[in-house]
């Protein structure tokens, strides 16, 4: 039962109902203590791990670059957990019920994993603003607020990509963890997380443009360095939103196809296709 004034049968109501599931899932996965000591601690250790490479290189600039990249990619990484929680619906045997329900499938999955958005933003926020200064990462008050806003955008835009990946992986369940981890590592490699895009050949720089993270991370670096002009920042944010909308579209298309093909072939149970 969804306690909301939203009219029955609307997409927004389905998304909201599904998001209740997401929050319940988060509460079942973590307590505030396990989230802080376990999850946040692990992410911060990961960020520090990469920043330390900067100290090995003997370059404070490299350390700062790596720290920012690793902190921001943590938001993206956490958002990609949408793949894991979406595919769990199939493992739990609830996917056939969702397909049989009068609602379309994409709004359900859109709301199903939103718990990772605030969680991802929170971990990167702690890493960037609370621990970052120890690694030379500094924001002014205004650029800090702006960077926080961009972190929220990192989460929302990457969620679109993650959702499309989840929709694809729902057909190839055994590959779900490979898809998440490979995606995340490719992002680390080519999206300007650990080395500037210019390090890579042009074709790879082009491929990096399809990831919203490439554009949002660029903006956070500009804000931290205090070097970005409004036009560059807005263009990058616009590109992030555009690519993300593309991914949301792909996700909705693939999810609806999954439902239609599954109904037709009766293959939606625990089977793989």
């Amino acid at each position, binding site marked *: 039962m969804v306690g909301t004034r939203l009219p029955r049968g609307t997409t927004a109501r389905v998304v909201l109902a599904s998001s209740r599931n997401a929050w319940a899932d988060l509460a079942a996965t973590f307590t505030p203590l396990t989230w802080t000591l376990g999850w946040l601690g692990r992410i911060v250790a990961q960020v520090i791990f990469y920043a330390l490479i900067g100290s*090995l290189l003997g370059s404070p600039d490299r350390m700062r670059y790596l720290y920012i990249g690793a902190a921001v990619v943590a938001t993206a990484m956490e958002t990609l957990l949408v793949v894991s929680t979406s595919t769990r619906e199939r493992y739990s045997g609830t996917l056939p019920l969702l397909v049989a329900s009068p609602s379309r499938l994409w709004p359900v999955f859109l709301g199903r994993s939103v718990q990772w958005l605030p969680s991802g933003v929170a971990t990167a926020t702690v890493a960037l603003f609370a621990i970052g200064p120890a690694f030379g990462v500094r924001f002014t008050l205004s650029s800090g607020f702006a960077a926080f806003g961009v972190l929220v955008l990192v989460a929302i835009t990457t969620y679109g990509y993650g959702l499309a990946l989840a929709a694809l992986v729902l057909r190839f369940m055994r590959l779900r963890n490979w898809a998440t*981890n490979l995606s995340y590592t490719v992002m680390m490699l080519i999206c300007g997380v650990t080395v500037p895009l210019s390090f890579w050949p042009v074709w790879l720089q082009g491929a990096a443009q399809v990831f919203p993270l490439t554009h949002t991370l660029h903006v956070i670096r500009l804000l931290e360095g205090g070097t970005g002009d409004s036009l560059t920042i807005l263009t990058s944010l616009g590109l992030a939103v555009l690519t993300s909308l593309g991914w949301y579209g792909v996700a909705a298309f693939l999810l609806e196809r999954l439902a239609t093909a599954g109904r037709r072939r009766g293959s939606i149970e625990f089977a793989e296709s």
Partner: protein
Amino acid sequence: MTLIIAPPTRLESALAYLNGLLAGSEREVRELRRSPDRLMALVTAPLLTLVFLAIMLQAGREDLAPFAVLAPALLVLWQMALQTSGDTVESERENGSLEALVVAPAPFPAVITGRIAAVTTVSMLGFVESWLVAALVFGVRVEIYHPWVFVGAVLATAYATAGSAMALAALFVRTRAARAFQNTLTYPFYILGGIIVPVSYLPDWLEPATRLVFLSWSSDLMRSSLDAGPVQGVALHLVMIVLLGTLGGVVGGVLVRRALAEVRQTGTIGHA
């Protein structure tokens, strides 16, 4: 007629242990074949090699390429051991088969050791992958100047990994949050183990902690074996790796037995 069940002789116990060990390895090999997740670390290792190498090359530090190539291989070792020790217990618990495994005549620690030994052997492929990817993608050939030291370090590290995984399995038998621990025990250990950045770069107050992590000795020795200069303290490093691994294995074995005795008594091993 009175039936007397004699306690097993030492030979019988050893044979039962060996049987359990072999059964565990066989089971793990089957598991590795049919569940791609178990090979995840080996799938991401080549990409991580590129990530680390790109950082070094972009900074113009080709001299640090051996650090970048070695790190993913060590990551694979640790990740796969961590995953196996956690998943072994957790998946059996989820299946409801943990109880059956515990009451079976084959000693449970032997089965776990067999599984861990099998996965540790497979995870050695991480070294091959890293070296190959570095050569094929960036044309970076990392030379092993002291092959015997390197081989010794790899074997000792494999042994210590298996021993530590046993200690982890003991932890996972007791907890219902094995997967959460699996996540938490990654990056802090990569830092303390000096997997890519030698522990000498860490603050002094952290050093005692790093010396309790066998990976810090392993990574030091392996890096030295890739350096043209003479390797210092080979024996000390090898002894420390083996010692810490043995300590993990023994403590883990005792803890697993104790945990099993306890959960048998309280009846809390499975879904209860």
